[in-house]
């Protein structure tokens, strides 16, 4: 470990990390430096997320023949399927922000493919995920306009309980509130997303029912239905509740926090550095830690909520 500039703003960071002395910097200098750091980390194709997407879905799909043909016992397949659902959101999240390729770029088709394919185990249409997520960015922590605000909770157990509650038939929060958000957006794209969501729902339940009535109810429950519920809880906990907690403040440097989890960066899916994502959504997930450590003195000077990181 090495001590970076002793100025009360800079931090102690491992010597490999780049850090900046921001003491005495003007507003314009701070934003210039912040943007320069962000620019360094943007514009890279996140190949790791692309491989992650296809490998994850391939493993999940392979579980079906393996289990139905009796090659893999269902008790072994269930945790793998659950892990697959937990892991399926983030590659699509990169695509939602056009990180793989923007409209008109050569790899745009791959961006859209990753966006769609990655979310299959979660049964979330890419169009719905993208539009509602961009609304979340636009209105983070706004009780009326942020589609993810319903995950706000007083603590971890309350967050888990709310995630489950929001998924009940007559609940208004969680995924149930996405329809309302799409109707409010009201564009042809949003209307198409609503239609796709209805088709996905019917498709999902038709497959579950067909499997169940053909003698594979337990397999359907443990490879898809229950993993999806566990995965959704996990995703909403780490991607929505934890990085925005207490989710009361609004504004560029107020609506998201940096935080240290006892479970580390991988088990929290990189969300400790979520503040960087909200500031610069086009920085790939795997680059947010490096960008964070470079930006940390600036974030500190800006008054970002930094909880132990």
């Amino acid at each position, binding site marked *: 470990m090495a001590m970076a500039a002793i100025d009360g703003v800079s931090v102690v960071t491992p010597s490999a990390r780049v850090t900046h002395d921001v003491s005495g910097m003007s507003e314009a200098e701070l934003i210039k430096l912040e943007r320069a750091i962000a620019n360094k980390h943007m514009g890279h194709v996140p190949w790791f997320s692309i491989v992650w997407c296809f490998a994850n879905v391939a493993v999940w799909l392979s579980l079906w023949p393996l289990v139905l043909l009796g090659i893999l016992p269902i008790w072994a397949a269930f945790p793998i399927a659950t892990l697959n659902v937990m892991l399926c959101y983030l590659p699509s999240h990169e695509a939602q922000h056009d990180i793989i390729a923007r409209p008109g770029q050569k790899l745009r088709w791959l961006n859209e493919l990753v966006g769609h394919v990655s979310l299959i185990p979660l049964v979330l249409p890419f169009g719905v995920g993208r539009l509602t997520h961009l609304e979340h960015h636009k209105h983070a922590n706004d009780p009326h306009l942020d589609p993810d605000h319903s995950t706000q909770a007083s603590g971890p157990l309350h967050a888990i309980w709310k995630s489950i509650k929001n998924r009940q038939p007559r609940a208004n929060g969680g995924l149930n509130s996405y329809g309302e958000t799409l109707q409010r957006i009201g564009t042809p794209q949003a209307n198409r997303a609503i239609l796709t969501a209805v088709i996905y729902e019917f498709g999902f*339940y038709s497959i579950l029912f067909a499997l169940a009535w053909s*003698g594979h109810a337990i397999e359907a429950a443990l490879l898809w239905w229950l993993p999806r519920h566990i995965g959704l809880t996990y995703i909403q906990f780490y991607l929505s509740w934890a990085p925005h907690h207490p989710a009361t403040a609004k504004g560029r440097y107020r609506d998201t926090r940096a935080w240290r989890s006892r479970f580390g960066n991988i088990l929290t899916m990189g969300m400790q550095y979520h503040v960087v994502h909200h500031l610069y959504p086009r920085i790939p997930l795997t680059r947010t830690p490096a960008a964070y450590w470079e930006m940390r003195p600036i974030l500190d000077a800006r008054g970002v909520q930094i909880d132990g990181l």
Partner: protein
Amino acid sequence: MVLKLVKFVFECGPLIFAVGFLWPLFAQIIGLADWVPPFGLSPLEMAFLLAMAFGLMAQVRGTWLWRQ
């Protein structure tokens, strides 16, 4: 018309889920557990009663959970 039908199906979600999924799921679990249902009911009949009990409860209360 189609929109009304879709809305109706979503409103009846818990009952449809009970019939479409929970009923065969419970029947399969009863069979795997080698449980003999009471009152001379077959596993499929018992599973139907259980699934409908849960489904009706969720349909009426708007939640599958024990508390709101």
